[in-house]
């Protein structure tokens, strides 16, 4: 199948902005316009953008709390299970019962941190839906600038308010320097 025969459909618009300030102001207007499936892509996190886009604080911390708690319980289970239950080692004049707890603090602390860190890594990947090695956006010349000096707003065609003409006009009216239609292969 040659390139010309490939079936494509519109994925959405990618609009370039000049500066963090410009994209910040445009993002506020996108939100007011009522778009739902859109995002602001930038080389670094722009301070205050969550509020401008109407996003709440990240809920990652709730997962991490559970992960850390699981680490604490694992460590206590491991230490009490082996030291008091399976094979009590009677050394250092330390008891092998509930009062051994202080000697178990360091390992408990370390495993809490370790499990939390793993929860952060994998929880983050799950929430932001990565790894995803291909994405229609990577086909866009404007979009690729996001990792250098581009400030991009991308509005998906799946958004209920999306319209080929009106959305393009809207993006130009809020200060986009260039608007590109991104297509995806079917």
């Amino acid at each position, binding site marked *: 199948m040659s390139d010309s025969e490939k079936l494509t459909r519109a994925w959405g618009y990618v609009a370039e902005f000049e500066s963090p300030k410009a994209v910040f102001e445009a993002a506020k207007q996108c939100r007011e316009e009522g778009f739902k499936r859109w995002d602001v*892509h930038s080389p670094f996190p722009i301070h205050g953008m969550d509020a401008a886009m109407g996003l709440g604080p990240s809920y990652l911390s709730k997962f991490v709390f559970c992960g850390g708690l699981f680490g604490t319980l694992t460590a206590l289970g491991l230490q009490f299970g082996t030291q008091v239950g*399976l094979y009590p080692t009677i050394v250092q004049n330390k008891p092998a019962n509930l009062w051994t707890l202080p000697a178990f603090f*360091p390992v408990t602390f*370390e495993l809490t941190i370790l499990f939390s860190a793993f929860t952060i890594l994998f929880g983050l990947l799950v929430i932001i839906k990565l790894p995803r090695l291909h994405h229609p956006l990577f086909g866009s010349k404007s979009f690729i600038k996001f990792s*250098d*000096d581009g400030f991009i707003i991308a509005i998906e065609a799946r958004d209920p308010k999306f319209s080929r003409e009106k959305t393009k006009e809207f993006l130009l009216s809020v200060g986009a320097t260039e608007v590109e239609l991104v297509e995806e292969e079917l």
Partner: protein
Amino acid sequence: MANGISSVEEQDLKGVAREPLVLNNRDYKWITNRICGIIEGGQPLLWWAIVIPCSLLVGVLLFTLVYLVSTGVGIWGNNQPVAWGWAITNFVFWIGIGHAGTLISAVLFLTRQKWRTSVNRAAEAMTLFAVVCAGIYPGFHVGRFWMVWFLAPVPNSNAIWQNFKSPLLWDVFAVSTYFTVSVIFWYIGLVPDLATIRDRCKGGLKKALYGIFALGWRGGNRQWRHYEMAYLLLAALSTPLVLSVHSVVSFDFATSVVPGWHTTIFPPYFVAGAIFGGFAMVLTLMIPCRTIYGLQDLLTPKHIDNMAKIIVLTGSIVGYAYLMELFIAFYGGNKYESAAFHLRALSGPYAWAYYTMMFCNVVAPQLFWIPWCRKNLLVVMAVCMCVNAGMWYERFVIIVTTLARDFLPGQWGYYEPTWVEIAMFVGTHGLFLFLFFMFVRFLPMIAISEVKGILPKSQVH
């Protein structure tokens, strides 16, 4: 938010205007090109001049390790009474160096020190490589290296479990947790920058590899908001972690009954020493890199000045700890303790090492009180070299001088390293530098996205 500030406050703000962290008003594109250029262009001659000898030293390290495993730890100089010779000295030395990276990343992140962005990536990489070097020593010090898995809490055929009440096992958990969390922290920080390199690659294997490790990062704010939370949480977890690791290392000594080790000052004293030695190593590596790769606009005299100030602060804390140890030995009235310190500082066979340590760690950094010394790179490098040596001597003094003079004079001995130990130590330096310069070759040594984020024009308010 300018309308919320009165004219008086505005004048105050002008008065405290800070030095810019990126000089010459560089823009985003310049930052991307300069940092990615290091990876994309050929390496300067100096890079080869460092990497080739270092890879030979890695060969020396591998040879000594094979020789050690095939022959036995008897080829090391340690024996009774000095059972912990250079091996443990070098372990504590390397693990201490591995503290600056996570400290810069975590503690300075939580305290909103924006200057960290230019140094954190390289410092974190340095941390990982230092911990790799550190891990070699206790692993091989157990004697039978193939039994090292006994350290892990897994069931074995003897049905014996690890002694979780022992500081040595705490150490296993602390160091391995520290390494793992540091890798995660470093990698999460790298993802946006790997995406930058991916997007600059024309194609082929290089693009595929950077692309896989960049995980398909798209820099959307719906990703950034969770990413920033992840970074904040990792910083919040790493801060107590970094303080705990060297505390736990110090428990190896402090919870024993050996005079000279059995002191409560050890945890804070070790942590301050680790930060001190770590920052010295960061400067030792970053000052040459800054010149070789033309990063003077990103790693400014302000950064070096700040790190020099941390060195003089932590160096003075370490100096206070040395003096407090002596004072408590005198004031505590324990004759074994006072004898241990008398031998350590005055009449013992290793008193020369004690004075080397005192000079390098306490006297030399005091130069950094003088602003001129913090600005002169040669002075900074000289002091950092002193600190690197001094921190090694600190561990040598603590371990060897203490063990060489035990409770009973009949047990006293003198320890000297064999050529195998010396070759191994030199070999780990080779490994450390080899890994570091490989990192410089293949990964962005300055956090591109973070540096962009602290430019004045990146602030939208």
